[in-house]
């Protein structure tokens, strides 16, 4: 089992400078998010996840123990590697999430465009031949051809 024990103890840690820098960046990031919400540039719905990310950054900078725990759990000796891999995964998940949102919205936009096109035809047809509503009896709904 010795090959599994290679990375039990994290040996490469963040330096104090790096931690201070990370904390400042995290705070600035959260301030930016707040500002974007305040100016209506970002929906609250999407801001929460970014805010949580900012808090995570801040926590990592203030309590280095958290990052070391993380590195230990992942089995890497270098805390920065653990940080990078987790960050990458989170960003990957986020961008996938946004692709899903974009697909949904594009579908909705198509539906809207179709709705507007159909409304246009209906209005036009009503304008061309006005005053012909409900003449004759209502047609039965088309019967579906049985197979």
């Amino acid at each position, binding site marked *: 089992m010795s090959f599994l024990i290679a990375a039990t103890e994290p040996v490469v840690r963040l330096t104090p400078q790096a931690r201070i820098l990370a904390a400042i960046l995290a705070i600035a990031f959260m301030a930016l998010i707040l500002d974007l919400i305040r100016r209506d540039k970002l929906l609250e719905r999407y801001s929460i996840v970014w805010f949580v990310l900012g808090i995570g950054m801040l926590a990592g900078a203030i309590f280095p123990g958290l990052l070391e725990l993380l590195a230990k759990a992942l089995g890497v000796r270098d805390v920065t590697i653990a940080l990078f891999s987790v960050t990458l995964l989170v960003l990957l998940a986020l961008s996938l999430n946004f692709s899903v949102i974009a697909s949904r919205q594009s579908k909705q936009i198509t539906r809207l465009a179709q709705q507007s096109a159909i409304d246009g035809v209906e209005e036009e047809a009503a304008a061309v031949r006005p005053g012909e509503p409900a003449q004759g009896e209502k047609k039965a709904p088309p019967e579906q*051809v049985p197979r």
Partner: protein
Amino acid sequence: MERTLFHGSTAGKQLLRFPHPDQRFGPRRRHPCQNRCVKKLVFIPAWNEEKSIEAVIADAREHVPGADIMVVDDGSTDRTPELARRSGALVASLPFNQGVGAAHQTAYIFALRHDYEICGQLDGDGQHPASEVARLIAAVENGADLAVGSRFAEDANPGVPEYRSTFARRLGQRLFSLLVSTSTRQTFTDTTSGMRALNVRAMELFAERYSSEFAEVESLQQAVRAGLVVEEVPVHMLAREHGNSFITPLTSAFYIFKTLIVLLIGQLRPKQVGQ
């Protein structure tokens, strides 16, 4: 009472809900075009086809008598919608270009809403003679759910010159038909044909979900999987009158690759249930 446009069980989750026509206009008002004909709609998806659209409309009117004719203008920036209107066709204008699939789907939704029972479709560039579309409509009247015009099927009108195509395009066509035929276990020779006729069952299926980029190819797979009767009818098509196809070897290779992926995914999709 609100209904989604579609009756499928999975329908309406992500779709906008369309109010029932009865609800939208208060007391039910018949669409004016229903006074002329209650049955058939021939629609022409068109994107910047001002040179050919009038001839296509005239051709459709001549060969499919009694049908209403609608042009689905897919965000044209030229005079297509004006000319179509002047020719007396209904015009559904999408506010921006959405791709051929969305245009087809617009017509299906419209047709379902206004109780059309059969829908025929032909391209706006003049490649599809309306007389052939009439044959497709006849095929649907005779029991097919979806009839697709094929340029390459065996007994296409003998005596009419063969449809001409470059070697690369023929190769691509063969590949598509191989892929679709394999995935549907039914022989298709012309998978990218936009000359079709369909009944309410097929329209409902496509109104619910319809690929926007790979409309023609994927819809065949979709229809067969849903248990629809899909029939390929040999037809004869004309060479393009105006405009060019933007197909180069590289883009078609990429297109084939994308289609392969789409068809593979299509095989994995849950089956839609044809009603």
